[in-house]
């Protein structure tokens, strides 16, 4: 870990001026990922700007019926918030399925969106990795990739995004709000993460120095009937092999609305729009759920050792939709 300076601004603009234009400067949230990567020598900031004393904490109702979750709200507070639990239960479940009680008390909502992959090669500076060291190659494609991507990857990177929270946010059409010296900006989460392509080092559309200030959730009729399910190699305290956030609104046997996002399968939370369109206005039957899953996963390209993820994702889509249908019929 290299030496660095530490600052603790209390105003957003003050924070921005400390980071914008300073290549070595980074925002520090809960530190659960950044400090870890600094110890590995993957991140080497020369200046840390602590954002947790900015006025960005808390969950509040948004005009129009949605919710706004401040960027420095801890995962714990987001998951425990009554309105999150009432209106977006899968979001609360997703957060609670992540990490441990201690880490959730530290990690922030803004930082969670910017979590880096848990690919072992990314965390090991002695090994090639295009995400960490562009142009050095991807070790995982030929190496160990049991828990790597099956959707949307490129020859340059097969890493997955590790967040649980972001999977639920993707299903609920969340919008990321961020601040630059030019003012306030918003972007849908679906456009927030960049495709892997040839530049896996560029993960989001955030301009350099921009500060995430909040995540807003639009009002949704279907979100209260939602569920998050995570499958992992231990019963708790492990990253997902595959996870799913789904919401389903069934009326008289017909799907009025379906939302599905998958975790652990791609470089970003994978919104299963193909499956959703198969389901829309169709019969809420197991056959249809399976057909939707098949349609979504027909694009999957498993590697040598992670083909099980396709089966697992398909089974999960079907199982969770079946459960939601049974609940909401």
């Amino acid at each position, binding site marked *: *870990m*290299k*030496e660095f300076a530490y600052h603790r601004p209390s105003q957003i603009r003050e924070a921005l001026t400390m980071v914008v234009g300073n290549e070595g400067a980074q925002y520090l949230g809960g530190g659960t990922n950044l400090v870890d990567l600094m*110890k590995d*020598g993957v991140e080497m900031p020369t200046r840390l700007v602590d954002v947790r004393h900015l006025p960005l904490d808390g969950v509040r109702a948004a005009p129009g019926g949605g919710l706004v979750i401040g960027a420095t709200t801890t995962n714990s507070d987001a998951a425990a918030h009554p309105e999150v639990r009432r209106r977006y239960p899968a979001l609360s479940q997703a957060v609670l399925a992540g990490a441990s009680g201690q880490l959730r008390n530290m990690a922030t909502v803004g930082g969670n969106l910017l979590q880096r992959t*848990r690919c*072992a*090669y990314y965390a*090991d500076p*002695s*090994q090639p990795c295009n995400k960490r060291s562009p142009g050095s190659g991807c*070790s995982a494609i*030929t*190496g*160990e990739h*049991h828990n790597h991507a099956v959707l949307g990857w490129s020859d340059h990177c097969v890493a997955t995004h590790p967040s649980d929270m972001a999977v639920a946010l993707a299903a609920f059409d969340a919008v990321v709000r961020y601040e630059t010296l030019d003012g306030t900006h918003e972007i849908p989460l679906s456009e927030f993460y960049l495709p892997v392509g040839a530049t896996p080092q560029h993960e989001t559309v955030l301009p350099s120095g921009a500060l995430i200030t909040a995540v807003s959730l639009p009002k949704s009729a279907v979100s209260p009937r939602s569920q998050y399910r995570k*499958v992992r*190699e*231990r*019963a*708790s*305290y*492990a*990253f997902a*092999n595959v996870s799913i956030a789904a919401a389903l609104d069934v009326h008289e*046997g017909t799907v009025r609305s379906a939302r599905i996002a998958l975790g652990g399968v791609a470089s970003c939370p994978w919104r299963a729009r193909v499956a959703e369109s198969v389901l829309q206005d169709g*019969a*809420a*039957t*197991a056959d249809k*759920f*399976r057909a939707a899953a098949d349609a979504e996963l027909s694009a999957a390209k498993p590697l040598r050792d992670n083909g*099980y993820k396709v*089966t*697992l994702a398909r*089974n*999960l889509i*079907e*199982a969770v939709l*079946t459960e939601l*249908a*049974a609940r909401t*019929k």
Partner: protein
Amino acid sequence: MNAFPTSASADAERPAGHRTVTPSADPANPPMSAVGTARTRVEGPGKVTGSVRYAADEPMQDLAFGWVVTSTVTRGRIRDIDISAVEGMPGVLGVIDHRNAPRLNLEAGSFFGPDGGMHLLQNDEVPHSGRPIALVVAETMEQARSAAAALRVTYDEEPHDVNFSLEHPAARPATSFFGEDATVGDVDAELAASAVVVDERYRTPEEHGAAMEPHSATAWWEDERLQVIDSNQGPFLVAMTVATLFSLDPAQVRVRAPHVGGGFGSKSAGCGPQLVLAVMATTTLGRPVRVTLTRSQVFQTVSMRPATDQRVRIGADADGRLRAIDHASAFEVSELADYLENCTELSNTLYAASAIRTRRTAVPVDILPPYSVRGPGATPGSFALESAMDEVAERLRMDPLELRLRNEPTVGPVSGLPFSRRNLVACLREGARRFGWVTRDHRPRTRREGRLLVGTGMAATSFGAGALPSSASITAETDGTFTVAIGASDIGTGARTALSAVAAEALRVDPEQIRLLIADSDLGPAWSAGGSRGTTSWSWAITEAAAELRSQLGDATLPLTVSFDTTESLGELPPMERHSYSAVFSEVTVDPATGEVRVRRLLGMFAVGRVINPLLARSQLVGGMIMGLSMALHEEGVRDPATGRHVNADFAGYHIAAHADVPDIEADFVPDYEPGDPSGIKGVGEIGTVGTAAAIANAVWHATGLRQRTLPIRLDRVLEERVGAENSATRCDLR
């Protein structure tokens, strides 16, 4: 004081007068209650208030911190270590590598011979990925870590080989240090004559002790003596190894290991890298140096259980009588050091069969030298043997419990020696009774609860018991108390509590009158906390010393000190089959749509000799079973097939069971007694681990109908296609 029911009956079988040296065997003086009573740990208050000190906790004046640098390639030579960027960094005191490190005695090793795993920084060769190649020492650990990261190392890489298998061309017969392979009867003829034959391969991966305390050593010179505080399982043996390694007079070396945060074998292999490097650094720099391994370095630099690849053939008659057991076992070794993963231990002793053949094969590959991890050999071997036994029962459509009962030997099936005390049947029957085994439908995939499949399984197990030479001294103090000194170590076993009880019984005083000194090599020769032989070895020495002291106490002037070394007493023991036994029963649920396996119930009945402290013994057995559960479902050291590098060398990648994976676990004792031990004890450290993986794998088969012959039972190995179709009709009507 104890919340558990105790098993006082564990003593019931005890004979009246088995050895005259044991004071408590004197019929005129019945044994005191110290042994056999549940007592809480003497260091408990210190452990719950954070006041007990582990190796990295000792405050030290003028302490410098060493940071280990490890190789990033798997095989080759170091071309250059460029220290120019490091030397001027703040706080840096020095860099030690193969060019300036003190020379070591390359004869130093373990009882398997010289151990190149300890011969660090002696040349430019890189024998495996993660090999320590330099130590950077600085004033603070932050400075040391930064400087270590700035060290530029270049290599000339050479091709490596980590592709281990039974058929590997370099496979060679394993060392016969612990006895020859077995050849009893005509295996091929018996197999040909069998009604059913199972012939399967079983594989277990590299597994790590993964004690919670990373290895740490602090070393300094004081009055011409090398002083060391280290986390290890046996300070005396470590001190002897340090003396050999650094060509010092043994009297010059003092090693202490006051509290040790778990070992499981990983702190038993002679002298850990943290200690070798700390001694080098303090010798070179002339001030106290502490070297603590990072978690990743613990995975990459201290010994692990080697991967195994085993072929088991078992032939049986239609009534379940075994005709043949043929167990061929291969395991990884390193060219740096020989080692034996004795996977065939149970095949030699657990069941009667007309013919038994065992073959042990070592396969050298480019990995760090493997060494013992909890239940070495027996644990992966049991997974193979007890899975195969379950497969025999399956093919015979027989109760797997009955199959075990039907093949109970009267003498050692290979050795022909009598059993000192064989209590497997009692474990099997009592375990089955408590588990409710009698109601089991032995056909697979017959129990379903909603989306879950449910199954049960069992395994029988033994583990060798015995003692190794140790010495103890006891002083009768003028105030009526006794000071007991023995070079034991407490790695979490409760040695302080147990040995106080043993000493109290032997001296016929209250445990409160005992002052126990352990964890210091200056206390004299003693075996380490390993091989399930720590407590037996130390208790023996204490018991004999106490008898001697009592015989001299009469009119002696106090204080009076008596010492005893057990080497001779041990030599008088007649050869016998001496083992602990257990039967393990498990119930699992499997979600075939996700491959998730959960252990819902785990029960072990144990015959482990006389139980010194049921509270602590049960903790060790339960903990051992949890390690077996963890091995069954989670643990796997993964190597990159291209680079040979261990890629999941942390707790986020190498999963060990967490709270949520572990149900309430039942462990209890059947009455047992070891006649060859003065206190009647065997050992409880490892047997809990040994049979558990097979019991769980067998339950997964029972739940799913699919046999799991490779550990761990990962979800991708269990996951089924299209299970939804099978379930959905019964689950709910969606319209």
